[in-house]
């Protein structure tokens, strides 16, 4: 295999459940050593994509090559080189924390002695050594998540698939997980993750795609996406009134885009301070003004809309 070949390559990849299309013809390439993100609201098709890449869900149509192999024919050989952290923890409830790692290692054919050594290392890596002999049930959500991540590393995988690795975790646990993932990346492991946390995507991903309704609606580095799909700065105005709507009309033409939310108005502009001055010149006096840099969240909401999908 040449180094130029992508580790994961999908062309026109489709996943249908009955007549419902969860993944609707996506093209993706993940290169060695990068951290690649799937960003998207619930139901966008992120997990369905991850399961196909993890070779536990046969694609309905399209082309998929992983590590140069065909996931349907070479499933075991590919899975031997992947680490998977699924969206929902599926740890073995009848085993202890340590046994969850050693047993999992055995599924990969790793010798017992090596499995024990690796389990000890990984428990240390995710800071669970003190709970090594506890069962899984009494662990907190964050601990279970860390254990699932440790389990995904037990076969020293070349690619690690992480489906919403930090959803539901408290800030401390999230930062710990981020820090560990960052270390893995520095060791040269290819990371593929899904998330709907923008800060997570901005922190971890070199490149990402935004998915919505089974399709890819944008792709690039976080910075490039912001440049392409948003302005440099955003001004948030809050007027002391029942409705913000009447004020929006007066702001028309200010900046590139005006967005009205129930509680505030967003002005997408190049220069925030200049825009605030213009608002003042119009004789408007918002109760609250905030100028901030555009974030991936603005891109995300712009591309996938603000309607709640659940």
């Amino acid at each position, binding site marked *: 295999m040449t180094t130029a070949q992508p580790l994961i390559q999908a062309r026109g990849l489709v996943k249908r459940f009955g007549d419902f299309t969860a993944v609707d013809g996506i093209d993706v390439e993940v290169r060695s050593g990068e951290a690649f993100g799937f960003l998207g609201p619930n139901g966008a098709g992120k997990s369905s994509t991850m399961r196909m890449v993890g070779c536990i*869900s046969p694609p309905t149509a399209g082309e998929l090559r992983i590590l140069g192999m065909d996931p349907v024919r070479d499933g075991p050989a590919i899975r031997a080189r992947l680490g998977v952290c699924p969206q929902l923890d599926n740890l073995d409830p009848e*085993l202890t924390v340590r046994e969850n790692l050693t047993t*999992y290692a055995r*599924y*990969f054919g790793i010798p017992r002695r090596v499995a024990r050594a690796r389990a000890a290392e990984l428990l240390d890596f995710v800071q669970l050594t003190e709970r090594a002999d506890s069962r899984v049930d009494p662990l907190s959500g964050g601990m279970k998540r860390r254990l699932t991540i440790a389990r995904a590393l037990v076969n020293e995988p070349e690619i690690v698939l992480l489906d919403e690795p930090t959803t539901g975790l408290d800030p401390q646990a999230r930062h710990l997980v981020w820090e560990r993932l960052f270390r893995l990346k520095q060791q040269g492991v290819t990371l593929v993750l899904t998330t709907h946390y923008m800060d997570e995507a901005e922190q971890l991903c070199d490149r990402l795609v935004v998915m919505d309704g089974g399709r890819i609606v944008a792709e690039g580095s976080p910075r490039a996406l912001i440049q392409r799909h948003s302005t440099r700065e955003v001004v948030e105005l809050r007027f002391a009134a029942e409705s913000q709507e009447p004020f929006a009309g007066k702001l028309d033409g200010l900046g590139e885009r005006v967005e009205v939310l129930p509680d505030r108005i967003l002005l997408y502009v190049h220069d925030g301070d200049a825009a605030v001055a213009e608002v003042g010149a119009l004789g408007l006096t918002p109760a609250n003004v905030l100028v901030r840099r555009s974030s991936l969240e603005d891109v995300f909401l712009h591309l996938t809309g603000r309607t709640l999908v659940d």
Partner: protein
Amino acid sequence: MSVVSLVLPRLVDVSAASRRSASVTERNVAALRSVYWLLLVSGFVEPLLYLLSIGVGVGALIGDIPVPGGEVVTYAAFVAPAMLASSAMSGALSETTFNFFGKIKYMKLYDGVIATPVRPFEIALGELAWAMLRGSTYSAAFLAVMVLMDLTTTARALVAFPAAVLVGFAFGALGMATATFMRSWQDFDLMGSAQFTLFLFSGTFVPAESYPTVLRWLVEVTPLYRAVHLIRGISVGVDGWAWVLDVLYLLAALGLGLLIASRRMGGLLYK
């Protein structure tokens, strides 16, 4: 050279597959906890109680019984091999239906396993091997009791053991296939009734020859009848070459059960 390059990959594949199956069995050994031992003991005590109450107790009223080989044996010696066969059956079934169903449906145990190189067929084989570790222990203990009670000879018991293991494997595989069709725990009541019917009518307590012809044919195609027939032939007297049919029947049940179970598991897990 060409033979080596053709055969070697297959051999490597087979050895990798059996290693992966073994890792599934190993997981169950690791999960074994003290409470489980009680369950293990109960599986042995039940057939023993049947043997003592019906075989010995009722047997005192019935007297001796002719077996197909032409010999005449005590009723206890007639019933004992049937108890062995049905304990091999129920030992295998309880692990491969109830526990296996729980692992698939509620524990979601294999959702994690399929993300590794282990395949559904290997999971099925590994679970079956585990069930048989348990079932075979019952069989060995029960055979020891039969020898002690003078219901068979040591030599016959040694031959009957692998036969009992085969019986367990066959029922285990059938049970596993059945478990993949189960929707909820309620379905197990149905299976329990089916199992008890088999237990009563498979030539267990009464020779199948004493049933009306149609019923007898019906009985003779059931798997437990074949199992009882095989083990009784070994422990008290062989009925010609009919045992070959029993063995082939049980092997076919084993193969079919495993095939259906792994196909169905693949469908349930690889969504």
